[in-house]
């Protein structure tokens, strides 16, 4: 408990110091609970998520960093490896390939990479996975872009 708190505090300080280091990621710690974090990440360019801003929720276990944080999308996203309803993410480094040397920042980077390179063969969102697997890249991209516009972009008034 103490170790994880200390480590999270270090990460917090690092985030404060290097706020502008990675403009695509904005990590925010909950005001009252250091085990709850949220992140805003920008959809990578040249993907259907470009221009969108996606919100992630981190729930960090007490054994962190020996165990990985639990991360899910709060913003709706159409992606083969993200559950359409719950926002759960299927990513190896969040499961068995976790290493305690990873940080919340590096998890965000890994998620951005996953958005740019979906793995349609282990889908959490089957509709999305099937579109890609059947080679309908256009269909996939327009669906993903539509949901990006609907959910991840500021509403035009």
């Amino acid at each position, binding site marked *: 408990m103490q*170790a994880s708190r200390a480590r999270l505090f*270090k990460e917090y300080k690092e985030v404060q110091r290097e706020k502008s280091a990675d403009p695509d990621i904005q990590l925010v710690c909950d005001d009252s609970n250091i085990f709850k974090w949220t992140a805003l990440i920008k959809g990578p360019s040249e993907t259907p998520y470009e221009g969108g801003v996606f919100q992630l929720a981190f729930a960090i276990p007490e054994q962190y*960093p*020996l165990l990985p944080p639990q991360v899910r999308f709060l913003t709706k996203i159409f992606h083969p490896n993200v559950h359409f309803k719950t926002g759960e993410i299927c990513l190896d*480094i969040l499961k068995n*390939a976790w*290493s*305690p*040397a990873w940080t919340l920042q590096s998890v965000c980077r890994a998620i951005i990479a996953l958005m740019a390179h979906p793995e349609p063969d282990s889908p959490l969102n089957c509709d999305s996975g099937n579109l890609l697997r059947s080679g309908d890249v256009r269909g996939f991209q327009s669906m993903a872009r539509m949901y990006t516009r609907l959910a991840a972009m500021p509403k035009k008034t």
Partner: protein
Amino acid sequence: MDPEEDMHDARGESSQEEEDFYSEGYPSDGEDEDDDGDDAGYDFVDNDSDDPSTDVRRLQQNYTTLNEENISQRQADDINRVSTVLSIKRWEACVLLRHYNWSVSKVHDEWFADEENVRKTVGLLEKHIEMPNKRELTCGICFENYPRDTMKASPCGHPFCFSCWRGYISTSINDGPGCLMLRCPDPTCRAAVGLDMVDSMASREDREKYARYLRRSYVEDNRKTKWCPAPGCEYAVEFVMGSGSYDVCCKCSYSFCWNCTEEAHRPVDCGTVARWILKNSAESENMNWILANSKPCPKCKRPIEKNQGCMHITCTPPCKFEFCWLCLGPWTEHGERTGGFYACNRYESAKQEGAYDESERRREMAKNSLERYTHYYERWAANQSSRQKALTDLQALQNEKLEKLSDRQSQPESQLKFITDAWLQIVECRRVLKWTYAYGFYLHENEHAKRQFFEYLQGEAESGLERLHQCAEKELQVYLEAETPLKDFNDFRTKLAGLTSVTRNYFENLVRALESGLNDVGPSNSQAGSNQAACSKSSSSKSLAPGKSKSGKSRTGGAATSSRSGSSRGMDDSIWTCDSCTCTNPKSNSHCQACDRHR
């Protein structure tokens, strides 16, 4: 000794023993002599019943039972060997061996073929990289700074603090046997973290767990060893590959098949056992039963079993459809004019036109196959429970009865081993007998001669075993209850030991005959081969003969005759042998005179 004669001796005893006993008189004055006789008797029994079994054991000893200590010892030996040959550290040898499933030769082969590649896949660095040479280093997990000499690293030189290492190793160990493949926490580094790191940093509890996983891996990943599957047993069995029978007997006295780890199942092969066990558990039998004994409601399609009453069926709520059981038509169309409540004219006429043939036939077939299966299963299960009972009896015998008997008969317990032997034999026979029912179930329906021969052998085995069981159970009782003359007891000893060895021989031959697929009984399809077939047949009936019971004796004679005539058949064309009952018939007969089957 001819066991058959022995049998007769044993049988004749009851009438002779009194006479003998009185002629000898009470043994008060001849105690020494009697003791001698007793010893001699024991030696004789020993030779007769123990030697063959130890012979068999010697032949079958193609496996070794290992306890925890043996396992660790062997593992340590293998690690030392690889470590010496490859000049690497012991923990490195351990990582290597685990990766190649503890095969020393495979490690050597791979290593000498492409050392660089092996090192890369397993995560062993050739050069030990030191930690960065600074006074203070940052731990890669907690990001704190510590003096260099309090940090530790794998040979890759990535520094982590002691408590983070400890947590990292502990998490991995508590996550399961995957801890044996632990790598450096740095995600870009694949360097192995081995036994030495675990031993120097983990808590005692974790170290023990790790050692246990290591031992388990040695048994489970190794192609030559398996755990004994008996509940609670901690032995492992090492098997010498390609050395005959897979049946092994663990030191805990549980016998199992090393190949499929089901309980020992000779004479049936592993595939048949798997099918049989699947069949016993399979839902398919339920389906068969439903198919055979029920009809679906014509409206809601739920299966209905008719176990009593008339043909007017009302389906259970909420359906409540009323229909005729026979023709499955709505009951509104039935009544007196269609034959009343117990018949259905519409059904009868439609049946005559053949409208129901297909579904009726399917139902009938399902019923037959179900009955056939039930027949074999019941007998299989009955022998199973008999065996369990015999095991319990054997326990009771060893726990108390032997001691009691030893007191009553003034015999040292060491000389009562023949009783334990008899019970062990009973247990073994029940096991074999049980599996013969699975064998019978899968024996091809069309191989009529084989089937009959099989059933004959099985029947003989059953009655032989029954006799032994009777003797070991009921007759023993007499000697438990009261003091009896020594002579009587010695006779009992001879009889039981004789029966044990006779039964053992019979069952051993039975197993061999069944394992060879009863190949010596085949339809006499080729006249040319018939001579040879007849020879092996006669040899098989001879080899089985020692176990033949008294009741089987006349039949043994019959079999011998028929095989003799069988061997002469090649020369004499004026007779033919029935495939079904092996009786010889004159050529003029087109049907067998014994069983009336067509030639």
